[in-house]
């Protein structure tokens, strides 16, 4: 059996192409050849909050690895050796990354309360300039402009309670 999975970690695209014959695995991860042996064992898989969680054990280059993998529709989280690797998967992996470039859309990183809006509509802002203060999980956090540009829209006011992911401020880059 063969399988191909397109992943992206940060800006790095990683295509995993494997041929699986029982517990024997051969193929490539990115541009590296890989040879591994799948090991049984580990806790039974389960589903929670839209994710499938599995323990995956394998030996590769003589070393044993035990990972916990949570698959969600657009990303795969892997816990391995005390570190978490977050991969975009599927369509999300194929999208050209805009990370680092900035979009000018400032969203609430999580549900919280808007403490202060530090800019006005129409104002020019610089990359890194504080634009809004939000209190979430008992901490005040300052959100900064991710582009140079002009404030096109302020969607909230101080005192508002907002959900995570909600657009707070839009900045037209330029």
């Amino acid at each position, binding site marked *: *059996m063969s*399988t191909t*999975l*397109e992943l992206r*970690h940060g800006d790095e695209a*990683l295509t*995993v192409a*494997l041929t*699986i014959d029982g517990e024997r*695995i051969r193929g490539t*991860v*990115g541009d590296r050849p*890989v040879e*591994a042996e799948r090991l049984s064992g580990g806790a039974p*898989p*389960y*589903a*929670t*909050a*839209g*994710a*499938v*969680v*599995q323990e*995956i054990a*394998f030996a*590769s280059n003589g070393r044993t*690895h035990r*990972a*916990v*993998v*949570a*698959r*969600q*529709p657009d990303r*795969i*989280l*892997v*816990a*391995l*050796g*005390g*570190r*978490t*690797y977050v*991969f975009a998967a*599927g*369509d999300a*992996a194929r999208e050209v990354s805009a990370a680092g470039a900035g979009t000018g859309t400032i969203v609430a*990183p999580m*549900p919280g309360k808007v403490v*202060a809006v530090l800019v006005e509509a129409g104002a020019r802002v610089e990359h890194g300039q504080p634009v809004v203060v939000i*209190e*979430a*999980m*008992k*901490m*005040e*956090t300052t959100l900064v402009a991710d582009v140079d540009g002009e404030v096109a829209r302020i969607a909230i006011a101080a005192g508002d309670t907002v959900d*995570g992911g909600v657009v707070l401020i839009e900045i037209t880059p330029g």
Partner: protein
Amino acid sequence: MRRVLIANRGEIAVRIARACRAAGLECVAVASDADLGAPHTLAADRMVRIGPAPARESYLDPAALLEAARASGADAVHPGYGFLAENAAFARAVETAGLVWIGPPADAIATMGDKLAARAAAMAAGVPVVPGTETAAGDSARVAADAERVGYPLLVKAAAGGGGKGMRIVRHPGELSAALEAAAREAAGAFADDRVYLERLLERPRHVEIQVLADRHGAAVHLGERECSVQRRHQKIVEESPCPVMTPALREAMSTAALAAARAVGYVNAGTVEFLLDASGRFYFLEMNTRLQVEHPVTELVTGIDLVAEQLRIARGEPLGFSQADVRLAGHAIEVRLYAEDPQAGFLPSAGPLLAWQAPAGPGIRVDAGVAAGMTIPVDYDPMLAKIAAWGPDRATAIARLRAALGDTVALGPYTNLAFLADVLEHPAFRAGETHTGFVDEHLAGWRQPLPDLHEAALAAALAGTTTGVPAAASGSLEPVLPTPWERLGRWRLGT
């Protein structure tokens, strides 16, 4: 005392429930709507609902907690840390309701809870304090003059503060008014008290604190120190005992000062006196925390004394069962706090479903956790998931055990500081014991997670997709079976 209401949540509520059970006491958990069925509610014998998710309508609501105690027949209240633990009015209300307050006298809480009053009390007891203003910051002209006298860099601190809330660093006079405003606003929101004051910012101090225990019969002992210098956002993330640079003479001096401060306010029960220790070995009173400390396990690991069990005994009016000479410090213990937060984004708190959780184990390892796989980390509370501690006969062994334990820990879902903590433990300066409150900024600014096993992780991700018999979605309701995640994941199905 027969049945204890635990007026808290998370790991500390679990830990208190265990202490109650070991002491033969029943215990009652309280739960906001966000915490129904959370681990702390299942660790207790009983559970009472106390209100909606927001803390001020549940864990910060004295009336709801007193009603929970009444309804459950509790005859004592343990406040844990945070929430109402250092609220003198709540302590009084508990005692007025005829319940035992498992903590210090309300007056001691009130004095030490007001940083200005605490500084005054410490000075009166002959305990050195950090140079600063002894009155609340008033009009801006006077504050500017005070600031010049204190000297830059300085700290603006909330009189009612704690845990870094309502605190700002000011390096230049031009930043002063903005810092005062921000600190006052944060303090007003967090403590309903916007008084702030100024304190000299010491350069590269260590945070060292002394654990004290005092009974109702006048006996008081200390249980040695904890060093808690490694902090981010002014909150501790790594704590250890003993302090790597402690000497017998310094310990004697600091613990004498700590006990003097405690006696000055008529302290009873467990408390912690915090000091800053500078490179020359001088130390300064910072504040007294009038409750159980988050990092109490490291003291338990080196002394063998169960602080919560002692709190229960003291609250029952029993005398301390040991003297200062009986307290021996053995070996070395280090604790890290596992937070749901993103160390690559300014330690921004994170929340959401905890998809997987596996605690480490092994000789000398202690885990205090308040989470379980499948639960949602609420946005409403402090995002600490667990405390992971290791004891060893020496500091190097404790570090090695703790580092290995972090490698065995799994917490998937929210961002966590797990890999960051591992890198703190790996850092040569930490290994050398060269810690101070600026450690994270000095050594780990701009930290990015190393990716030593990226290819192995990608392989694991791919292998996870090659199992066909995946579990279907599970739900607690009686609705029709949900589409399986497998179906929803169809876009990246296997080729053949």
